């Protein structure tokens, strides 16, 4: 899938992945790839500016955890993040439904 289309929706997708449970960067990108059956396969490093931006915006918070002897930053959804995700998901479903109607699907 063209990365430009993905970038415009990356925030919502990351929030959706974290809605299923906290995760660190690598596990988030892996879960995103797996849940999309490989359709969303962007350069892995691009999630970090997005994660940091979401945390700055109060939609995520993070803490450090030691896993297998290495420090990892674990991100989790905040209540504000949950509400934001719910709004974005509703808007997306309405948008994609309208697009499908126009395309005749």
């Amino acid at each position, binding site marked *: 899938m063209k990365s430009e289309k993905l970038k415009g929706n990356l925030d919502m997708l990351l929030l959706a992945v974290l809605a299923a449970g906290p995760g*660190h960067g690598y596990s988030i990108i892996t879960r995103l790839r797996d849940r999309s059956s490989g359709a969303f396969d962007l350069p892995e*490093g*691009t999630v970090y500016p997005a994660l*940091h931006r979401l945390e700055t915006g109060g939609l995520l918070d993070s803490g450090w955890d030691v896993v297998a002897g290495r420090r990892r930053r674990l991100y989790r959804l905040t209540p504000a993040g949950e509400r934001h995700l719910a709004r974005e998901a509703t808007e997306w479903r309405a948008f994609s439904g309208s697009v499908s109607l126009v395309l005749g699907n």
Partner: protein
Amino acid sequence: MTDQAPAPDAGEPIEDYLDRLLLSLSGPPRSVRHTLAEIEAHLHDAAADELAAGRSQEEAERIAVARIGAVHEVSGRSPLFSRPSAAFVRRTAMAGSLIGGVALIAYAVSAAISWALAAIGGGEFVTAPFPPGTYTATDCAHWLAGDPSTRSCVAAMTRDHVGDIILQGIAAGLLGVLALLAFGVMRQRWQDRGTLIALPVGSAEAVGAILAVVIAAISARDAFHLATVERGLGAGQPIAIAIAALCAAAFFGLRLYRGARTTGGFARA
């Protein structure tokens, strides 16, 4: 050292990536440290997956680095707006002093060649005399005063010009030696990994070689023009410059070759 050695180890892709990332990150130190720790953990997790799939350690690290993407994608800053890091400035200074030092010494060498050509072919062969009407009797008197052995204004003029070339060559040679000494000092002081990989290995040599070849080509063209159209008047200096530039190009080429043999190929950017 060369501008190239000691080169980064060819087998540490993750370490090299983290070094480049550190140089590109800006912001509060804690934020920089945290980002670095995050990316390091990410890379090692990705490499571990590749290792589990049967790849070698180095191959696994290379794949992990390729998958995470360019440094500016992780830092979130466009490379156009990234301010140069201190390591990049240091590396550029080293490269500049190497290229500049060699260039100045090459000019000194060309001056020596010009002097030899003047001795063989006369001053007019090295530097064409000014066209008649462009200099005055006072100018002639000045030139003749500097060369009592001749009564010819043109001969005295060209001998004066050759003298200027030699003086410029001496000055350039001294400056070139200073520049190369500065390069040696910087090389000794700045052997940290960050400085060494701030520019691609061999980049200074490559730039120097290209510039030298271009200068040699332009000078050769000028010499050919002067030899064919101007009956050889003034062809000597461009010939001297072309020869010296080719020597400089060979010098840089040899350093590139040695560097390639040492590192097993040019380091990745």
